[in-house]
């Protein structure tokens, strides 16, 4: 039934999307989204949510087209401060900075932005193509996920730690456990008991993820800069003569982009796993498959391309699940479903039959938004990169003020801002003790997903551990995911033992 409608999926929406007003709205949305994403603390969710009221008076196609523009723009825009200042604009761009920021430190910020823009564009287009071609298939697999499979997926995500742990797997694992612990803060969803809140009402809903990420990465980086000797001149001047990546570089990156786009789409299609996890998994996959894993983390364009291609491709996957099942693939698509409902449209399998032209328009809008993203990104990359050339005594205060107001704006509470500062100090201490930070964030994202699904499986089996284990073992999907996880976990150790590859694949910034 869904396939029958797919034939018209490419043409039905043409007249809806290709009119001057809709195109203009997509362009405006993309530009706004880039600005939102580039502001630390302002996320894609927030941008889309804030703009939903603006779309009330529009037609449903125009509304969804503009919101898609914001969504994609923000996914891309977040990479800009991540590359230039190691300050992820949105959590999804956390891994972009691992290689992007060292490139900026070498004066190659412009090149990194070019790679980021091109990869985002290609990844986004890839995601849109998948949405059109494979929507029904991917959605049906993701739709059959139960709590056992979710737990397995979360565990698979955690095995990425073994690739991003750096010199010491032990320190990486400890960092991951701290993240898991932070994830348990707040009301326990099963028993309703408040855990580790110490009487703070602000902690009942959990430690705010964005505050933790901005603190551990962004603020910690600022503190390190403040701590370094002499308040001298700015960092290395940026070479900006060529932003567009050369053909040879693109040729080198083509498989990275293809692979990461596929990963991004698949992760995006899994309900609940969004662009952040897509970026982390793709980066981990890239360090694993890179010809020079020892160089990852030192400013390799591969790292930037992997993360950026994947988090933009993720949008296509998330929308696949949203449109064909009516289930949000990530938090932004949850808001998009809400926006559709406001316009009297219910997302789900029926939509393909009842309103194929809208489905088609959504797919086309995604493509158009990606084209605008490429245009704006390449046109403005030089301007963006000049930000880094600002003297440090101006840049540091401005960035801290931006981080403060962005974190405050999330919930309008200063508690989160203090928490962000505290996590900044934690990040600085972690860097001093050479504890990698990325596993912490990974644990924080995946911890709650893992815990709730493990306990749900336990509940289904009346709390019997043996029966729960059996329910995992009897799911073929679980077994496959566990096998992949085990393989991923064992691979670095095996390679170390056989001496094929060096152990260090990821170096936290010095």
């Amino acid at each position: 039934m869904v396939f029958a409608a797919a034939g018209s999926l490419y043409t039905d929406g043409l007249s809806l999307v290709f009119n001057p007003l809709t195109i203009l709205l997509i362009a405006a949305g993309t530009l706004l989204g880039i600005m939102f994403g580039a502001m630390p603390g302002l996320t894609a969710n927030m941008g889309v949510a804030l703009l939903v009221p603006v779309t009330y008076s529009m037609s449903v196609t125009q509304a969804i087209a503009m919101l898609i523009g914001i969504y994609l723009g923000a996914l891309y825009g977040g990479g800009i401060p991540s590359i230039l200042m190691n300050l992820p604009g949105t959590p999804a761009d956390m891994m972009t900075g691992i290689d992007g920021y060292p490139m900026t430190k070498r004066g190659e910020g412009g090149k990194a932005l070019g790679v980021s823009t091109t990869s985002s564009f290609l990844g986004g287009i890839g995601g849109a193509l998948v949405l059109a071609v494979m929507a029904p298939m991917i959605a049906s697999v993701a739709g059959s996920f139960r709590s056992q499979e979710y737990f397995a997926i979360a565990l698979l995500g955690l095995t990425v730690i073994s690739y991003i742990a750096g010199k010491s797997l032990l320190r990486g694992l400890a960092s991951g456990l701290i993240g898991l612990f932070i994830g348990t803060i707040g009301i326990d969803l099963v028993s309703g008991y408040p855990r580790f809140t110490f009487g703070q009402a602000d902690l009942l809903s959990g430690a705010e993820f964005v505050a933790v990420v901005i603190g551990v990465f962004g603020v910690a980086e600022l503190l390190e800069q403040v701590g370094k000797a002499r308040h001298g001149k700015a960092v290395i001047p940026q070479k900006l003569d060529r932003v567009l990546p050369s053909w040879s570089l693109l040729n080198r990156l083509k498989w990275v982009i293809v692979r990461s786009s596929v990963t991004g789409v698949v992760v995006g299609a899994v309900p609940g796993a969004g662009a952040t996890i897509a970026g982390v998994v793709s980066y981990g996959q890239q360090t694993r498959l890179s010809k020079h894993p020892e160089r990852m983390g030192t400013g390799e364009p591969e790292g930037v391309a992997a993360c950026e291609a994947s988090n933009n491709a993720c949008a296509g996957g998330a929308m696949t699940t949203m449109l064909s099942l009516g289930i949000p693939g990530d938090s932004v698509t949850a808001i998009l479903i809400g926006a559709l409902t406001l316009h009297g449209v219910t997302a789900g399998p029926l939509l393909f039959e009842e309103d194929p032209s809208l489905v088609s328009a959504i797919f086309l809008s995604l493509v158009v938004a990606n084209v605008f993203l490429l245009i704006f990104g390449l046109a403005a990359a030089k301007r963006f990169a000049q930000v880094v050339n600002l003297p440090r005594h101006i840049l540091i205060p401005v960035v801290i003020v931006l981080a403060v107001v962005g974190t405050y704006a999330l919930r309008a509470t200063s508690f989160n801002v203090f928490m962000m500062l505290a996590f900044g100090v934690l990040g600085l201490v972690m860097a001093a003790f050479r504890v990698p930070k990325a596993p912490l964030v990974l644990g924080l994202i995946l911890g709650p997903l893992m815990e709730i699904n493990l306990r749900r499986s336990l509940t289904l089996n009346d709390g019997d551990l043996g029966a729960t284990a059996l329910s995992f073992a009897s799911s073929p999907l679980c077994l496959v995911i566990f096998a992949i996880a085990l393989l991923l976990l064992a691979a670095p150790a095996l390679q170390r033992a056989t001496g094929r590859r060096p152990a260090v694949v990821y170096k936290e910034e010095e």
Partner: protein
Amino acid sequence: MRDTILGIAFVIMGLLIVVTTHDYPPAASLAADPALFPRAIGAGLGALGVLIAVTSLRARRSEERNRSAVPDATAEQSEVGPGPDAADGMSQTIWRVAPFVAAAAVYVWVAFSSGLGYATSTFLFLTVLMIWLSPKRNIASYVSSAALSGAISAALYVTFVFALSVPIPPGILP
């Protein structure tokens, strides 16, 4: 040495987590127990801490043994990571970072919780910080810092209050 401290810190953190869960209400089943996951994390953290501390102590002992066995070898080169002046560098870092963090915390409190309001306190914070971090010490640089700070705080205020309708305290501003 640094790794030994780190290992001990992890053990203490793990213990603290487990201890905090002790007064959690008893649960009817394993699945409903709010302490199950945190205790597992605490235990894991403690175990990792012990491993890290032991590995580091062992590495040091074998290094000392090597050094005494081969007295004139490349002993100085074998040190991996920051050398003896690392501790010195760290205390200097703390001296620079601590006032910065304190200033930021005071700023956050003043901006959102005192009556002064967001825009005014952001202006003051930016001006003070720019002058403090700037290498120049003259009237012209003070004035330009203040002007820049004024423009930035006004722009932020307008963006967040009017364009994004985030409830930011206006304070003494109308």
